[in-house]
């Protein structure tokens, strides 16, 4: 978002159109088109309506988690708890629909995620604990809470519960549209609001931001709260799509979210990262997953390949040392 484009200057030829460096956008589009082309030519099923809808639905979880993760990463933090939050919010919602109206139950799921984020953020900001440690602890705590609430999967009967995750608006799943709205709103938030600008600046140099009269703690808490709420929403949508909520769902989801940010050029040190490129990272990951599935690659090999592909993408777009 700031500087990462020109920072990579010297390694690759830059593509500048009308004063704007579009190299990253073009590179992502090319990579995604390449993946789509490969998939379309080598697999009969890829371009079918079912598969496309499927891919669009699968994006939602990774996408929502990746956006929340990006906001936290921008502050120089990390949120390892998102996978567990997905499980907790899903199982809470599924459990509550028997007694509450569906939208209320879903709201509770999202609020549970928000609450987890607030706790994470408060521990990080107010008590100056390391984000890695705090969210590692809540990864296990929240997962535990999900099991405490219900050891067994919960499958609500009411068909209205499935709407959020499976309804289509024309050819596009509603859940995908929700994710897109989050990305667009998120992009505006980070580039155009004082809070968004402050969050990015904090990752660059918190002391400078503090002396500029900006409340650093409050913004760090806000970042984790956003991540928690996104994870809560992802959990609700996932449970609704699958039709059954499992306390064990979402293990290692945080890794895909982090990978999407990093593929999009975010710096884990904070202060640098882009919403659009993160979205590109999500697309790349989901397409790779889908391709490997269509090829029927065994799931362990899928993991190996995905890891290698992530390294390759990062190597290509890595920033050189600069002074």
């Amino acid at each position: 978002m700031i500087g990462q484009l020109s920072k990579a200057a010297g390694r690759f030829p830059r593509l500048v159109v009308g004063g704007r460096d579009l190299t990253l956008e073009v590179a992502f589009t090319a990579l995604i088109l390449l993946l789509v082309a490969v998939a379309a030519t080598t697999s009969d099923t890829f371009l079918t309506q079912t598969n496309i809808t499927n891919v669009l639905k699968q994006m939602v979880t990774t996408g929502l988690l990746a956006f929340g993760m990006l906001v936290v990463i921008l502050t120089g933090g990390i949120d390892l708890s998102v996978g567990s939050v997905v499980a907790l919010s899903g199982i809470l919602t599924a459990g509550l629909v028997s007694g509450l109206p569906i939208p209320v139950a879903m709201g509770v799921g999202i609020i549970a995620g928000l609450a987890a984020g607030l706790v994470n953020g408060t521990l990080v900001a107010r008590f100056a604990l390391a984000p890695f440690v705090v969210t590692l602890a809540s990864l296990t705590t929240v997962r535990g809470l999900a099991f405490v609430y219900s050891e067994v999967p919960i499958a609500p009967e009411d068909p209205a519960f499935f709407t959020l995750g499976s309804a289509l608006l024309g050819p596009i799943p509603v859940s995908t549209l929700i994710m897109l709205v989050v990305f667009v709103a998120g992009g505006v938030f980070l580039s155009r609001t004082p809070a968004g600008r402050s969050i990015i600046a904090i990752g660059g140099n918190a002391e400078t931001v503090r002396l500029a009269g900006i409340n650093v703690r409050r913004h760090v808490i806000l970042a984790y709260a956003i991540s928690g709420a996104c994870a809560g929403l992802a959990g609700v949508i996932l449970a609704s799509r699958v039709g059954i909520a499992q306390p064990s769902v979402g293990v290692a989801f945080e890794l895909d979210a982090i990978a999407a940010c990093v593929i999009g050029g975010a710096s884990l040190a904070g202060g640098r990262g882009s919403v659009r490129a993160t979205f590109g990272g999500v697309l790349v990951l989901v397409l790779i997953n889908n391709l490997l599935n269509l090829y029927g690659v065994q799931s362990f090999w899928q993991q190996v390949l995905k890891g290698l592909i992530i390294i390759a993408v990062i190597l290509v777009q890595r920033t050189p040392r600069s002074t």
Partner: protein
Amino acid sequence: MILELRDVRKDYGGVEVLHGVDLQGRQGEVLAVVGANGAGKSTLIKILAGAQPMSSGEMWMDGERVELRSPHDAHDKGVRTVYQELTLVPELSVTENLLMGDFPRKRGLIDWSAAHARARELLESIGFGAIDPRTKAGRLTVARQQMVEIAKALVTEPRVLVLDEPSAVLAGSDLESLFALIRRLRERGVLVIYVSHRLAEILELADSIVVIKDGKVIETTEPARTSEDDLIRRMAGRKLEQIYPDRRQERGDALLTVTGLTRRGEFEDVSFTLHAGEIVGLFGLVGSGRSEMARCVFGAEPATSGTGAYRSPAEAIAAGLALVTEDRKRSGLVLGMSVRDNIALTTLRGPLIDMGRQRRDVAGMVDRLSIQPPQCASMPVVRLSGGNQQKAVLAKWLLAEPRVLLLDEPTRGVDMATRVEIYRMIDGLARSGIGVLLISSDLTEVMGATDRVLVMAEGRITGELRSDRTTEDEILAYSMGQHA
């Protein structure tokens, strides 16, 4: 001739900033490099240090062509560099920073007492014995950190010592120690390449002077054949009429009243009043507590007792205060962000930021402070030259339209022509009713640009003097705690 540069060119991503520089340095010579902000001095130095590759040109040492691929190569050739920006690792002790891994060992383990002893010995041998090698570097004042940087370059004897604005943050006896050190090194046959905007010290210290303008050497001269005015004229391309504006101003109401302010271990019982329309200088040597006091008034650090300090920077800003801190890298800028984002940081207003207005405001500031290059707004601030980075910090606070300006070394690393602009601007702000506290270790500045001067020594205010009736010696005497 131990060092020679021939037709050195350098471009950053297609923009050439050095256009064929030739430079020659002999053994036992102090070679001064002067030039306006952004002229290319630091770039030249990074090339000498192997930290940046040249785009074309040659470097020769002792009659042999050398190619530096990394700072390590330069180090091997005996070239030691002290960069303009501080590079110490704040979390490590002075000893660790100095010895950088090359520790004395006992039975395979680091012998810490020997390591500290060696660091102490080194610091003492170059006249900086006041620094405790066990302290974490980040806890030292900027001036002390600068001295440690210099010591670090001297852990082993250099052949060429390159110093990029080492004196910008030093004053009084520290400056004396630095000059004495440079003279000793010269006697030992070291080539010292010295960059500074303080022309008086250059005339005193240098054997030869190279003037750089817009990436070219435009003059090579000697102290005997030139003068301050002359150099300024060459650097700026025009003559400077008057450095400090005439100050004869009625002062208005009290804007900031500080009484008995104390922060344990840093300063004690500080009282002063800053009125509308006045510029008050604050002078003090390293360790006098002047920066700490300003930070405390601004609410960046809590006070132990006393009144007048704000509880948080946000509160201070709401009351109309602004604080330009002395360490731009650590607390003045977000280096990875653009110039615009940095300057706009004090004026973020929502719910949605008015981008058009932000752009105009920032462009106005870039213009008013002549931040170079003029189209820098969307560049990462780290790519500006040191002096221009300093101007960006100033711009950020001016945009907040403060009523009380606390300036801690605001002209650090800023060239003479721009300083004159800044003095004129401060004067204008004061005339419009703003109160300014100008902390500086530059004696002429602290006397010239102000109405009165407060002097601090060892955490206390030891004197208050009228700028037009005092002398440098008098200020210095107070700053050493001697009540003249």
